[in-house]
């Protein structure tokens, strides 16, 4: 699992990285460091379809914190996989209410990563965030 991460920590990390080459290298390395996905992750039901890349996502209860969720994600694109790892790190260990109030788009906008979150197909990351929120809503309602 990727380390858990807050939006503040993410923005600090990005500030420490000087130019965009380094930032992309950081994202790429995050993608590389993700442990191999469990085979069931790649089931069709877990696929969040993007036009340019595929993202798979599953959610499960977080054993370390009652009431919280944790996520596992993968992508066929290494940059999207790295960004998915960031999103997993940001959302895992949070309760549904915390997930639903996390201002991740604003943060990505500040980091100039918003282009990856387009919900109009694109990378699939925008759809991944929406699915995490749907799961959070469904969990909260259950």
């Amino acid at each position, binding site marked *: 699992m990727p380390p858990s991460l807050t939006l503040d920590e993410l923005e600090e990390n990005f500030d420490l990285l000087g130019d965009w080459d380094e930032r992309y290298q950081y994202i790429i390395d995050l993608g590389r460091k993700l442990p191999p996905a469990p085979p069931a992750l790649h089931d069709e039901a877990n696929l969040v379809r993007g036009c340019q890349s595929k993202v798979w996502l599953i959610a499960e209860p977080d054993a370390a914190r009652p009431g919280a969720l944790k996520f596992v994600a993968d992508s066929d694109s*290494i940059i999207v996989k790295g960004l998915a790892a960031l999103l997993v790190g940001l959302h895992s260990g949070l309760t549904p209410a915390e997930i639903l109030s996390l201002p991740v788009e604003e943060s990505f906008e500040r980091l100039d990563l918003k282009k990856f979150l387009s919900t109009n197909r694109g*990378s699939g990351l925008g759809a991944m965030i929406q699915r995490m929120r749907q799961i959070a809503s469904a969990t909260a309602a259950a």
Partner: protein
Amino acid sequence: MSIPASSPATGVQQSNDHYDVEAVRADFPILAKPMNGKKLVFLDSAASAQKPRQMLAAMQALYEDHYANIHRGIYDFSVRSTDDYDAARARVARFINAGHPGEIVFTRNATEAMNLVAVAWGRTHLKAGDEIIVSAMEHHANIVPWQMLREATGIVLRVAPIKPDGSLDWDVFSKLLNERTKLVAMTHMSNVLGTITPAKEIARAAHAVGAKVLFDGSQFAVHGGADVRAIDADFYTITAHKLYGPNGIGALYAKRDILESMPPYQGGGDMIERVTWEKTTYAAPPNRFEAGTPAIAEAIGFAAALDYMESWGLERIMAHERELLEIATARLSAIPGLTIYGTAPQKGAVISFTIDGLHALDVGALLDRQGIAVRVGQHCAEPLMDFLGVHSTIRASFAMYSTADEVEALAEGLEKARKMLS
């Protein structure tokens, strides 16, 4: 309306020596703008081309000088705006060598032009069991309208395959033609592979079985200069924004007798002859198909963009693009692990490729940071991607303002992306 382009300077290029690409570039203000802090290398003109200031000035001049709604205006500005709009239609007709301006219907884009044919012609003239043939390399715009027509009428949609080099498989295509074939709807140039289809031969074969023929000229028009009468096309679709013109306007060419056989596509102002509560009669083509206030300034911009292209000469623009395609093909082929999709002998200036072990999106994202704009993904041609057996490709496309230096920047950008990703 015509605004002269900057006059070509002399003697800069080697093999196309009257074509001064730097002078062309100077007419496109956006090309001087950096992207992500880097010098812009714009290689996505097949998605939408950039705009010359002469085109922008023509639209601005209308709005600042004598803009008014067209048709039935009694006052001077309306009459002049109407004249400009009509002249734009005649200009588009001349660009594709239509026999008469009345054979040009302005639409929002080529997609709307194809939908217009599918609805107004298809639902009137086709019935269950009639067949439409498309090719395996169509854009979704030349697939989905026919699928919708199939749902509405029960027509049969047949797909002519392509060969490994991306050219149309003529043997199979010609066997698909039969007396039930009512329409062959095919791209004139693939937006993914660059393949230019043998339009004249396709039209002749289609006509021989009594079918009509439609060409999606979205890509070809800017790279080849279409001649609808030489092809003997029944329908031909183009879009202004790929021709250095504005967004929001395109055109459907259709032979006059065919247009006259088609009922309206949408109802409203401008498309009627007389309206009463009991019965409304419709205007003659092309107005019959242009309900509501049209894109007036865009039509004038469209015409100005065509004037701009012709001020440099289509032949010279094409020679320039052919040269770039050759340079790019040679340069990219030298990159280890790079596969080019589409190597048909007749090919326009787009080049789709993948690099072994690298995801197209990752490459595109890293090129973006170097100021290089390419398109990655499925290019609105999912069935073609399935046929090619790839999820997505990277596509670089060249325009009248592209340069050999930009090809080199792309190749170096790809090497850098590979280094970061492997």
